[in-house]
């Protein structure tokens, strides 16, 4: 069942905002040998009762089906949405990228940041911290370019995603 080609899927998991729920989900992935490419979690309701977990995972379609079925039977899970399967959706991630340098490198870093619509959120005479957001590919590409102008370190949020259109998925 595991020989079909691997696919990347973005899952949105609506869960009770209770202690241990993240451990339950992460533990399920590790115990059953599923991949987590990225994971984000935050409270998304006004009464703090519900969180949305976004997991980017990869595997052959039968494994993706199993992942969804396994997640769905956890007691605190309200629902599991396979955004990749459901259709049009927006995926974004944000990164904070620190670069250090002076002279031409510093100027080039600023020029590249402008092209990527990355904003400097911290600066010193020999460094910047840029905030960049967009698709994973865009963030990857920005970071790759920053390597050539003095990349120091990176922090990324991982992907958050939501279905397009007026309806809740």
């Amino acid at each position, binding site marked *: *069942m595991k020989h079909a080609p691997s696919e990347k899927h973005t899952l949105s998991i609506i869960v009770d905002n209770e202690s*241990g729920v993240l451990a339950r989900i992460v533990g*399920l992935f590790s*115990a059953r040998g599923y991949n987590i490419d990225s994971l984000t979690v935050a409270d998304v309701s006004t009464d703090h009762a519900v969180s949305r977990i976004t997991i980017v995972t990869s595997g052959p379609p039968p494994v993706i089906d*199993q992942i969804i079925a396994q997640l*769905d039977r956890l*007691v605190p899970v309200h629902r599991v949405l396979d955004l990749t399967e459901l259709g049009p959706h927006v995926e974004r991630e944000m990164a904070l990228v620190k670069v250090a340098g002076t002279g031409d490198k510093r100027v080039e870093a600023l020029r590249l940041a402008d092209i990527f619509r990355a904003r400097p959120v911290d600066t010193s005479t020999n460094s910047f911290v840029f905030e960049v957001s967009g698709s994973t590919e865009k963030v990857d590409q920005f970071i790759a370019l920053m390597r050539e102008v003095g990349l120091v370190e990176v922090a990324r949020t991982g992907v958050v995603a939501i279905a397009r259109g007026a309806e809740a998925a």
Partner: protein
Amino acid sequence: MSAIQPADTSREMTGAEIVVQALIDQGVDTIFGYPGGAVLPIYDALFAEGRIKHILVRHEQAAVHAAEGYARSSGKVGVVLVTSGPGATNAVTGITDAMMDSIPLVVITGQVPTHLIGTDAFQECDTVGITRHCSKHNYLIKETARLASALHEAFYIARSGRPGPVVIDIPKDVQIMRGPYAAPTAAGHKTYKPQTKGDQTAIETAVEMLAAAERPILYTGGGVINSGPHATTLLRALAALTGAPVTSTLMGLGTMEHRHKQFLGMLGMHGSYEANMAMNRCDLMLCIGARFDDRVTGRLDAFSPHSKKIHIDIDRSSINKTVRVDLGIVGDVGSVLEDMLALWKARGHAAQDLEPWWADIAGWRARDCFGFKQQGPALLPQKAIQRLWEKTRDQAPIISTEVGQHQMWAAQHFGFDAPNKWLTSGGLGTMGYGLPAAIGAQLANPGALVIDIAGEASIQMNIQELGTATQYRLPVKIFIINNEYMGMVRQWQELNHGGRYSESYSDSLPDFVKLAEAYGWKGITINGPDDLDAGIDAMLAHDGPVVVDCRVTKLANCFPMIPSGAAHTDMMLEGEAPPTSEPDEDAKALV
């Protein structure tokens, strides 16, 4: 202690009183446990509480297995009460066992007070962390106000959908503080809503596929038993209407009368030749509450290659997990079978002409795969179990087992005609399961004949529970198939490891008769075929607990057997030459 009244309205109680009241309101009359520092307030609330009988085991693992035996033989939720730290960790094997075999349990564990959690306090362990993946759900209750609803939820979750164990960890201060109590309501759960009714279109398709099949087989499992006695009746009705052969997993034995002409016996690694051949050659497999376990399928790429497969299961994640099926129906077995039967009748389907199919099956049956020849002075284990069955069948006994060869021989040679009579650790394969399970079953069925068919190695894993049976005057029988080996380990070493019997012998065995007597039991020895009937008769004649040490031939193997990594069609039968060479590495790596 304060008297606990029937609770109709919300009112204040201590956490410990809430626990006891919730158990009473959930209809619990028996719990299995062991006290300790972190559960003393609950034990205090239980003191002189006449409506709940507490069974004091000798080890927390046994408390859980006893609750499993109670649950499986009664259809009720089993309840366990243990302390923090070692109390909880000792219970983990039992909790995992219940998880693997889908047994409804509520396990209450004490915890150090909330302000000490995370400080490595005395007898502290991260119980919810440890049990997160071996329970269906678990809770750490940090406020007394949350306790009543969590307990009621736990019972609901344990018994609904695919049943399983639910752990509730209660810090000692939460047991002492006062909080509101509310009785259980009929409302389900806000997020956990298992689908019990099958999809009607899928059911229609299933009925058409079944009606059109030329070589159908019903492959049934523990889900039929978990669905309740009604599901067994419906299964038998479906078998009668379709005329199809039926096979069962280890967990499902008893749902078909074992001598029914349509029943092919257990399937899988030590199942019958006819069941496995029929699974291999069928054109339609209807899987009812079973999960395509590796003991059942053998080599996956050779598993039933020419069949369409339908799978009915209440757990969606069981469908397409290891074997891809053509049609999955998520729902309770009883509900789906009821719909299928109604539809079959409404559409006026007649049973197909299955004559050619039954002729094939008759050919496989003729191999007499469970046959054995008792000759000479050494007693064959198969013979011992067959006679035990013949001499007790009129009493419809409840049989528990330990794990190993004796377990498989019991499954092969003991006949079951009703559900909830066969208690065995299938998924986890826990040695030491049988004696506590028998104790639990005896408590749930006071008048029944309950026998633990054991091995001399397994029985020692929870032998201390002899004392529990003595204390509560439970007339449990233990029938030890004693071959002085961990027989299944030895068999695998013979077949897979060149007969190098590394550490698989039973040395320094106790004198089981004297051991039984030391605990106030009766002890009987059966030394050979000539003693067998008299020994069983003496066991049955004694109205208290009995240990029978039944000495059998030492090197018998359990056949038929599908060797590791082999297909159903590669079964080894008794008397066939074993493989001359050791298996390859891939096969050796399988369990």
